[in-house]
């Protein structure tokens, strides 16, 4: 493939970041917005071209005679060379998942760029302070995220991983005069940094034993069969699996080194993807502007953890223990987040917990994927859900942004019955809810159904568990929908200031994403993205997904979703006493859910009471009194000694002469004695 387009994809957002960041304050707000959006638009076109070429050109570089999709490194620049075999490269890798991510990122990013033109100004058209900075950060984020997904090696991925973390930090703390935003950005940064520590250690372990950072090398081993012999460097043949699995020295606490490496890498993914127990930063990250939440904390950055696991999936297949951990963590997180989402008041919080839950779905799906079952259906389902979820969750967030922009509050208590005032937002939000609830034929139905099928193939227990979570998902989303748009009529005191649909820059992305959410489910993902590149279906048509459905699973999940929606309708469509009764029936459960199962309090307890109080305080005391005390006493001693002898320097010349004279006499006497 020609290197021009890939280079534009990476360089243009970076250039826009520098351009808007450095020169933004010299241009008008409108110009900055248009430039940022146009830059992202060009990137979008380039990314679409690349993805289209990859999937549909039939070029033998990308797809071989058996129809197997290949990884292709477009370019790979050597950046740092530590040893002949340990080289850091920066490059551009295209394969099914990176092409798919290019599409997702550029689509959502472009929508958000467009949407922000309307969102980042108030009703009177006054631009938000720091508007240009906002666009610069958005471009930085897009650059980092694109660099992350096209990384050719795990270290490049780590670099961009940190960059997305940094740009997420900057964007959460965009309203830096608001203390809650500042602390939320710090929280997000610290929690993900903590997770990235595990990621880094995992990378070091993995690359130490494998002698390479490159994904192609790392994963080709497993793809081509577990007995693949792989060349490390200069002809030394080494079996990567035997290094990891059969080296008795390379086990630690009963698990092999490979398990440890993979679990630690997954820890990095847990941090970014807000898996329990590292999820606490994501709800707070909603302090950022809503388009940022849509882009970073719903569609792209938070799925980086899923992407990471998918990227290293062949390695994970070698160590199914790590996959089991992923399943457990994912399933618990999904259920937990769904429970919490059922009682939150802040609509962005509901969406945040919904995001956590849906990402956990993807994680579970990856965890249950096995080559034995439907050619690794879980892997495909996970990527499919990632794709569809990015679309409809971004749609939901952007709708929420439109509502917040119109109402000026995050609470549904301030909304209620908005369907007449904001029809476009109403319809698009409804489509998003139907998609996430998994109603046929919206996007979420197909991907979620594939996930549930994969779970079913793995174990019945996790299938039932995830079906419950899917039901909860439908329930809390429609609870939110009804509470915002129905419940009771909106009180309007002044007809001139009634809430209304937003300008076209904001509604156009909603409509586009709604349309995509309607039809994304029909994308024949099984032929495009699979774990080993082999297509799953023989022939492809528009209805491929429909034809290949496991109808028993689909019927059950549809039933669950419809029942959940009906319950939500019964409870929330019109104002009634049922929710309050439910709440009073199970006050403890409601309290725990409302307070997010007290995770934040637990963290506060651990950090403040245990770490700060029991560990840091004694260390601080030791530092202050023992170490500083030693140093201080050196200084004091020197000081005192010099004070006590400063009298010698009296300024009286004759005293000096006396001392000199005595010295001379002594020296003379000694010399005389010695000479005699």
């Amino acid at each position, binding site marked *: 493939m020609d290197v021009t387009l890939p280079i534009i994809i990476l360089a243009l957002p970076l250039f826009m970041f520098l351009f808007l960041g450095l020169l933004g304050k010299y241009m008008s707000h409108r110009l900055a917005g248009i430039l940022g959006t146009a830059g992202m638009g060009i990137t979008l076109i380039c990314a679409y071209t690349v993805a289209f070429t990859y999937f549909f050109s039939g070029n033998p570089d990308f797809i071989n005679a058996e129809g197997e999709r290949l990884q292709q490194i477009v370019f790979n620049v050597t950046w740092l060379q530590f040893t002949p075999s340990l080289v850091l490269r920066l490059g551009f890798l295209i394969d099914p998942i990176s092409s798919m991510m290019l599409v997702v990122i550029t689509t959502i990013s472009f929508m958000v760029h467009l949407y922000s033109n309307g969102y980042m100004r108030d009703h009177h058209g006054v631009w938000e302070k720091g508007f240009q900075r906002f666009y610069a950060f958005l471009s930085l984020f897009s650059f980092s995220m694109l660099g992350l997904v096209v990384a050719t090696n795990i270290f490049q991925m780590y670099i961009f991983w940190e960059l997305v973390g940094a740009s997420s930090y900057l964007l959460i703390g965009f309203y830096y005069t608001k203390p809650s935003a500042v602390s939320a950005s710090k929280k997000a940064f610290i929690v993900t940094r903590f997770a990235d520590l595990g990621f880094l250690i995992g990378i070091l372990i993995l690359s130490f034993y494998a002698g390479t950072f490159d994904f192609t090398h790392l994963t080709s081993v497993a793809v081509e069969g577990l007995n693949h012999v792989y060349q490390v460097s200069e002809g030394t043949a080494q079996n990567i699996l035997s290094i990891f699995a059969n080296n008795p020295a390379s086990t630690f606490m009963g698990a092999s080194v490979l398990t440890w490496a993979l679990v630690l890498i997954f820890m990095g993914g847990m941090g970014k993807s807000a898996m329990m127990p590292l999820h606490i930063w994501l709800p707070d990250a909603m302090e950022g502007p809503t388009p940022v939440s849509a882009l970073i904390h719903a569609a792209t950055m938070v799925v980086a953890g899923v992407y990471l696991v998918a990227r290293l999936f062949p390695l994970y297949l070698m160590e199914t223990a790590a996959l089991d951990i992923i399943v457990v963590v994912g399933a618990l997180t999904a259920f937990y987040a769904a429970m919490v989402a059922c009682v939150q008041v802040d609509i962005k919080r509901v969406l945040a917990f919904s995001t956590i839950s849906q990402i956990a779905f993807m994680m579970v799906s990856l965890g249950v994927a096995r080559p034995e079952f439907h050619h690794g259906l879980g892997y495909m389902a996970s990527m499919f859900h990632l794709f569809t979820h990015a679309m409809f969750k971004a749609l939901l967030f952007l709708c929420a942004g439109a509502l917040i922009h119109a109402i000026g509050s995050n609470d549904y208590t301030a909304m209620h019955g908005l369907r007449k005032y904001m029809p476009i937002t109403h319809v698009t939000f409804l489509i998003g809810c139907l998609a996430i609830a998994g109603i046929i034929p919206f996007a979420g139905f197909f991907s979620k159904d594939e996930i549930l099928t994969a779970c079913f193939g793995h174990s019945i227990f996790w299938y039932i568990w995830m079906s419950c979570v899917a039901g909860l998902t439908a329930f809390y989303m429609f609870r939110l929908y009804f509470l915002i748009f129905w419940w009771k009529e909106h009180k309007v005191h002044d007809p001139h200031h009634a809430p209304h649909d937003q300008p076209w820059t904001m509604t156009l992305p909603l409509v586009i994403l709604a349309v995509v959410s309607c039809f994304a489910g029909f994308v024949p993902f099984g032929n495009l993205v699979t774990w080993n590149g082999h297509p799953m279906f023989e022939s492809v048509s528009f209805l491929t997904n429909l034809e290949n459905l496991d109808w028993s699973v689909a019927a059950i999940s549809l039933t669950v979703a419809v029942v959940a929606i009906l319950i939500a309708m019964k409870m929330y469509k019109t104002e009634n006493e049922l929710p309050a009764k439910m709440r009073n029936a199970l006050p403890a459960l409601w309290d725990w859910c409302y307070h997010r199962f007290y995770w934040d309090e637990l963290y506060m307890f651990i950090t403040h009471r245990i770490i700060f109080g029991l560990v840091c305080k004694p260390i601080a005391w030791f530092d202050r009194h023992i170490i500083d005390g030693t140093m201080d006493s050196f200084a004091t001693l020197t000081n005192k000694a010099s004070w006590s002898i*400063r009298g010698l*320097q*009296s*300024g*009286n*010349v*004759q005293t000096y*002469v*006396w001392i000199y*004279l005595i010295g001379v006499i002594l020296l003379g006497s000694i010399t005389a004695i010695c000479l005699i």
Partner: protein
Amino acid sequence: MELTMLYYLIPSLFMFCCGVYGFVTRKNMIAILISLELMLNAVDINFVVFNRYLFPGNMEGMFFTLFAIAIAAAETALAIAIIINIFRVASDIDVREINKMKF
């Protein structure tokens, strides 16, 4: 009686010790400078005497003295300039009072 080296060294030594005494006891800066000159002079005598008695054909001691005299003249001139300057500032040339440079 023969005038050996000792006969010249003893007065020179005496002169030197007078210089030492004066240097450590006198308070007037000029008096201190005078004592200094005495000491220098005693050393000069020693140079000449050793040259005369031990190396009569050479002139090193003599030249050393010659240069010592020249340097003493320079040093005295400079010292007196400093003393006058101090007198101008402090109206006094008592060495005990001039201790502004301590510590």
